[in-house]
């Protein structure tokens, strides 16, 4: 059984339709990259999975259980965590409180504050400052740590490298194998296509709310990917 199965997904912001008949599959432990130009619908796809946008579908199931009309909070408790675009740390919470609140749903598992600090040693000394006092890279680390604190089986990363310096991006990408080694499945939404192709088992390329191309990175030529990306 796949971890996540999506058939014929339509997603809406009021009258505006952002996804059209979208199909998506994710196996246990798998890493999938979702790429596409700005406004293609990548964030909307992640929001549909976490119950944060109005959506209809034939199938939207997690481990065989329909999550179509589940509350966002319940979906987190099932083991789906999100690292949102722009990090979205809570300004009135300290770094450590931001991490702790990631574990709010009380899902048991192997992640703890201690292990997050081992993964991101830079955060340990900054634990009591407000999340917003951190550098962009440290904020992204906190956002990832916060997601890990819910002991997820699936993490959705939205624009993982956006706005970060190349050395920081490298540092962030080095932790993905560690997370993967825990058996955690991942969806990585990324502007940096090369980065995405390096970590992904499969790629989904979105264009104007529709699936333009999908396959394993090795099977897809650069030309086909750019064609799907830019719609040329």
């Amino acid at each position: 059984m796949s971890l996540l199965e999506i058939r014929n997904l339509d997603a809406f912001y009021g009258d505006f339709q952002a996804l059209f008949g979208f199909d998506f599959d994710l196996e246990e432990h798998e890493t999938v990259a979702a790429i596409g130009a700005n406004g293609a619908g990548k964030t909307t796809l992640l929001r549909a999975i976490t119950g944060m946008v109005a959506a209809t579908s034939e199938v939207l199931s997690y481990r065989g259980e329909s999550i179509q009309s589940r509350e966002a909070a319940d979906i987190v408790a099932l083991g789906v965590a999100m690292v949102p675009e722009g990090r979205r740390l809570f300004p009135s919470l300290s770094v450590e409180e931001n991490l702790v609140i990631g574990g709010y749903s009380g899902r048991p598992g192997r992640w703890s504050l201690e292990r997050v600090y081992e993964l991101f040693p830079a955060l340990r000394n900054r634990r009591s400052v407000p999340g917003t006092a951190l550098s962009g890279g440290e904020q992204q680390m906190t956002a990832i740590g916060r997601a890990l604190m819910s002991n997820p089986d699936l993490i959705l990363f939205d624009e993982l490298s956006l706005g970060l310096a190349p050395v920081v991006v490298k540092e962030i990408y080095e932790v993905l194998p560690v997370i993967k080694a825990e058996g955690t499945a991942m969806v990585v939404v990324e502007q940096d296509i090369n980065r995405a192709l390096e970590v992904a088992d499969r790629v989904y390329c979105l264009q104007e709310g529709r699936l333009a191309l999908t396959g394993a990175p090795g099977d897809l030529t650069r030309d086909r990917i750019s064609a799907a990306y830019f719609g040329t």
Partner: protein
Amino acid sequence: MIEWVNSIVQGVLTGGLYALFAAGLAIIFGVMRLVNIAHGDLIVLAAFVAMVTIETTGVDPFVSMVAVLPFMFFFGYVLQRGILNYTLGDDLLPPLLVTFGISIVIQNLLLEIFSADSQRLKAGPIEVSSVELVEGIELGTLPLIVFVIAVALIFALQIGFSRTRLGRAFRATSDDPSTARLMGINQKHIFGLAMAVSLVLVAIAGIFIGIRTNFDPALGPTRLLFAFEAVIIGGLGSMWGTLAGGVILGVAQNIGAKIDPGWQFLAGHIAFLVILVLRPNGLFPRTRDD
């Protein structure tokens, strides 16, 4: 001279009560951006609930809290989840209109059941006892107890907000409701709990009003106004701001009353306006601007 000092001291004591009114209002606004127009009427409702409890069981007003506080907690949760949650959204108007409607309903129900007569919760000999601080300044035992409990509650709330799981959930929801949902925080439940906590404060405030002064079904709107003024004076940064707001309002009213008995409330409003002009975000604003 000592009379002025006395006015200020009495104002501080009254301010503790105002801070209690304000704390409940501030929590609701802070967590869900809802201005609860019915806040004052809920205070009066709590006083009447206490009155009925006292009359039917014969207990002391302080003891009646054992029943009234859980009742108001439950009432707050049900009110929020049954009605107010459905009014919240991008538009600020629906919750205002609905709480205004609730305010009218409570006033009319209380008027229908209890008439417009003024009531009082009888606390016994403690009502007239007092302690002399220095010559010329006597503190009523009851106002003093009310003040001490109010400060202790504000202190407990501040600790609760900063150190507990529920406090973190309140702050996270206040900062960024949609990201808070992504943490597994059930927003409807958190809003219900926030209103429940608010109405526990309302219940305590209502009982204290009932012991300290007369109350009647029409008293709500002015209590709302005091609460509102104290919140704005204090800013929404912390519960200490709320306490400061209550105390400043209480002191201003007492000094006004000292100058001329008719100036009591006017002086409070003037202090409110002056601070609003000088510090539009209050004395202890939230550190971030959104």
